[in-house]
Structures are given as C-alpha cells and as structure tokens.
C-alpha cells in the first residue's frame, strides 16, 4: 500500500474527484475539482482514470513525506516543486522514492494545482464520490482539509506513465456567459455593464463562489433581485441587491434566491477558477448552443490527449533515476 504523509498541508488542500452527482435533489453540492481540466490532465500523465481522486492545493501547496515508492504528477497553477531540495517542473510524471520529501511552494500563473498519484488517492467514497465538501463535512479525507500528520493512501500503478508532458494551454481571454434565468430583469444598459470593462475578483473567492467587484447591476425594480429559491448551476452568476455579481462554483448551495443574470460557460470555468483575488475577469455573451459545442470540443480534446505532448526534456527523468541508483548503491 502506497502512502504519503502530510508534513505541511499548505493553505487549503482537499481530496477531490470530478464531483458528486445525482444527489443535488437532496441538497448535496457537487463539489469536485474546480479546474476539471488540470485535474484530468494530472491523472492522464499517470495513466489513471480521469476521475481518480487527487489533491487540490490552493495558493500555497502542501509538502509530503513519501512512505513508499510511487509516481506523482501535478498540473494547474505553476507551484514551485522541490523534491529533496532539487527543483522539478510540474506537468510531467515524476517517480518518487521512500523517504523523499516532496514540497510545493506558492502558486504562480494561477491559484490551484492538482496533485495526482499513481492509482489515485484512496479514500472512502460518500454517495459515489471522493470529493470533499468541507461545509457539510463529507467526503475526501475525513470531510475536511488536510492537516499535518495525515497519512493518505494511494493506489497502485494502473499503467506505466507515458513520456508525456502537458503542452502550453492557450485560450481566449474573455470568460463567456450564457444568458441566465433572470436575464430579462436586466435592461440593455445593465447588460452592457456586465459585458463591458470587466470585474475584479475580491478576497471573498472560495470553492463556494467568487464575489466580484465592478459596475453595479440593477435589476428592474419590479420584481427586483429576489426570486423564489431555485436550483443553482455551476457558474450561475447571481446578482443580489447591491448589484455586485457572485459566481457560484463547485461547493455552492444547491438552491439560491437571487436573480441570475447568466451562467459561466463550462469551457471557461478552468480559466475563471485559476484567477486570483485582484485579477480582472471580462465577460462576453455566448449562446447556450455555442457554449455546448465549445464544451464538447474541449472535453474531447482533453480525453483524446490533445493537451499532452512528448516530453523531450529528459532532466525530469534523469534526476530521480540517479537518485534511485544512489539509493541502491547505499544498500
């Protein structure tokens, strides 16, 4: 049984998979990896199933002691990675050996990094999912964020990882938005504001939702900003009285009572959730048909390995091999 021991948990590290579905009618938030693309890519590098449980690290990564040889891979925000004091890049599979110290630093170019291990992290599933939902204390590792001293099991190698690395991800700058349930409550002037200069991410941005600052959006006074509680969707942009939008994300409440001007297109969710407080987000309108086509293309590209390329940089292989040789020699 492979194991990692948490030395330092980082700022906010949880076990996630692609989410807990089929229970929204009972009020369970789907939870799941915020940047589903980075999550899937980290698993792909190891030949894991797309949905194999991994760790989501936020802003500042965790450090681990390796208790048995395994292979890991990270994807998402570029967190400085050191193994026994040597620098490694993320986005490639890395063999790690018993006794090694794996340390992630602060996130650059993004806010979330996913750590996958060969065979996935092993936790009990709740309602079919390994995702942690901290607010209700369910799923993942004891329903909470990781803490120093936690020992988390990993699986066995499913397949030998290929010689791949994650290719650079290029994407359009704007975050596209599908007109929402109460779009009609916002007049032309308000829509122009929404799709204008952009909004700034406030400090109140977490797995539940992102509160934005920028032009105030006023709904028509009658019926106003309140609605009868209605199910929320991933990316629902709620506009409460006060006019500052809130984008609902993975840990959202399953029902909400504020007017929804739009829904962030799924294809652009990874881009949005990698932004940091203080960053600007600019919205652009898209039809639901176009958003669907874009999301379908994106998922096909991820699943077909369209974000991977052959890794010609052998430095990431050489060091661990040398390390292992050194260890064998010591015996």
């Amino acid at each position, binding site marked *: 049984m492979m194991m990692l021991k948490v030395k330092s948990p980082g700022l906010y590290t949880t076990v996630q998979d692609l989410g807990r*579905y*089929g*229970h*929204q*009618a*009972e*009020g*369970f*938030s789907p939870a799941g990896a915020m940047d589903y693309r980075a999550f899937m890519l980290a698993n792909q590098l190891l030949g894991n199933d797309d949905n194999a449980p991994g760790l989501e690290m936020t802003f500042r990564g965790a450090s681990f002691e390796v208790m048995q040889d395994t292979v890991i891979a990270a994807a998402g925000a570029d967190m400085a990675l050191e193994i026994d004091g040597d620098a490694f890049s993320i986005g490639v599979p890395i063999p790690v050996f018993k006794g090694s110290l794996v340390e992630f630093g602060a996130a650059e170019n993004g806010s979330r990094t996913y750590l996958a291990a060969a065979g996935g992290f092993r936790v009990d599933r*709740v*309602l079919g999912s390994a995702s942690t939902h901290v*607010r*209700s*204390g*369910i799923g993942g590792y004891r329903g909470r964020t990781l803490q120093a001293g936690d020992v988390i099991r990993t699986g066995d190698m499913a397949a030998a990882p290929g010689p791949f690395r994650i290719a650079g991800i290029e994407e359009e700058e704007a975050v596209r938005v*599908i*007109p*929402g*349930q109460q779009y009609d409550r916002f007049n032309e002037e308000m829509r122009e504001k929404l799709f204008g200069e952009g909004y700034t991410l406030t400090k109140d941005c977490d797995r539940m939702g992102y509160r934005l600052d920028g032009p105030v959006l006023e709904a028509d006074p009658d019926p106003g900003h309140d609605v*009868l*509680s*209605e*199910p929320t*969707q*991933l*990316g629902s942009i709620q506009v409460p009285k006060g006019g500052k939008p809130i984008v609902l994300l993975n840990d959202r*409440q*399953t*029902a909400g009572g504020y007017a*929804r001007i739009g*829904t962030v*297109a*799924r294809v652009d969710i990874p881009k949005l959730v990698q932004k940091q407080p203080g960053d600007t987000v600019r919205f652009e309108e898209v039809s*639901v*048909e176009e*958003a*669907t086509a874009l*999301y*379908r293309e994106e*998922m096909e590209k991820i699943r077909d390995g369209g974000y991977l390329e052959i890794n010609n940089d052998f430095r990431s292989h050489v060091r661990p091999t040398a390390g292992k040789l050194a260890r064998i020699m010591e015996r």
Partner: protein
Amino acid sequence: MDIRQFAENALTIYMGDEIDERVNRQLVALRHHIEGMEVEGIDEIVLSYTSLIIYFDIFKTDARVLKETLGDIDEEALLEEEIEYRVIEIPVCYGGEYGPDLGNFQDNGLSEQEVIDLHGNKEYLVYMLGFMPGFPYLGGLDEKLHKARLETPRVRIPAGSVGIGGRQTGMYPFESPGGWHLLGRTPVPLFDPGREETILYAAGDRIIYRPIDEAEYRRIEEDIASGDYEIKYEMKGGQ
C-alpha cells in the same frame, strides 16, 4: 410546456410562479413521469418551488432531442396521476437545551405548550431540498408561528435542530450557523451516509413532528446507536 436552457447540460421546465401545492404536485408527477420514460442521457432531476431541472449528459443526448421528447407531455394530465408519497415521522424534543427559543413566541401571544401544539402533529409538505444537504423547504406552517429571524444569528446550530425562520419551518441535518428560532431537536440523524437512503425525504413527501420527552429522546438515541431504531413512515397517495 415552458422548457428553457441556461446551462450546457440542463433544461429547466417552469410550471408556475408562486409557492403552491398544486404546482408542487404537478412537478412531482412530472418528475415521476420523466423517470418512467427512461430517456437516454438524463442524469438527474432536481425540483424547486416552481420548476424542475433535468441534468443530462451532452455526450449521450442533446437539448433539442430532449425538448422534443419532453414537449409532448400533457401538463393537465399530470395532475390526475396518482403519486405515492411518504409521511415521515420526526420525533422532536421541544424546549429546554434542545429548543432554547421555544419561549420566544410570547410576543406572538403563545405559551410554550401552544407553540408545540401548533407546530407538532401536523403534516408539512416538502417542496424542495437545498441550502444544505437534506434541508427541507416545508409548506404549511401556521401563520401564528411566523416570526422574524433572530437579530443576531447563532454561530453554531446543532445538527437535528428544528426551528422557525420567518414564514418557514425546517430542520438542520448538519451543524451550521443560522438565525432561526430553535424549538427543539430530533435524535434521528437526518443525514446518515451508512443508511440506504442517506436523506430521509424528498420533494413531494410530508413530514410530521411528533413531540417526545427527554427520556424518549435518550431511548431513541440509544436505539439508533445499537441499530434498533426504525424510521416511522406511512405511504399515502397512489392507487
């Protein structure tokens, strides 16, 4: 039928614009009807007060096909469908440490016992669930019990607490902050991951709060711990 789409993988069907038992009955019947159709690609159906959301897998079906399939359903005929529902009994110990706000209804002109009499032994309709896992939005609270929320919300409300907030009554399956007046608490776990039905009720079911004393609260707690407690419910409706 008003079918609309606000997300790539979801269709929303609106059936009304206010909280209404008839609309709820229609929505429950619609959910039942759609489940019976066994349409390829439908992942889950979520009810709210006035609408129903169908989540689907965009790799197995598409919105156009679903709209065509669902568009033929006769809304009026739904009201004639006989749908079974459960009436679930939730034992509640009112007052004391379990319900520290039971005495707050004096300004409504009600003694503690009168609050219990008005609140307990009465069927409440579960319109929808949300806010937190297993939190029921219930209909049927006596007007005399309507009461504005606490001015200062509590930081911690224990799981199982039963309370009133504004025109609503309900209960907290998980510990949570909140501004409701707490009338009592149930020893029955509203969420239990080890139970076949992790949440005891669904939209369309009814809930009855049965007043119990502290001794019975303890007994039920013990029975639950030893696995001897059976949830009491009755099936109604249907043929």
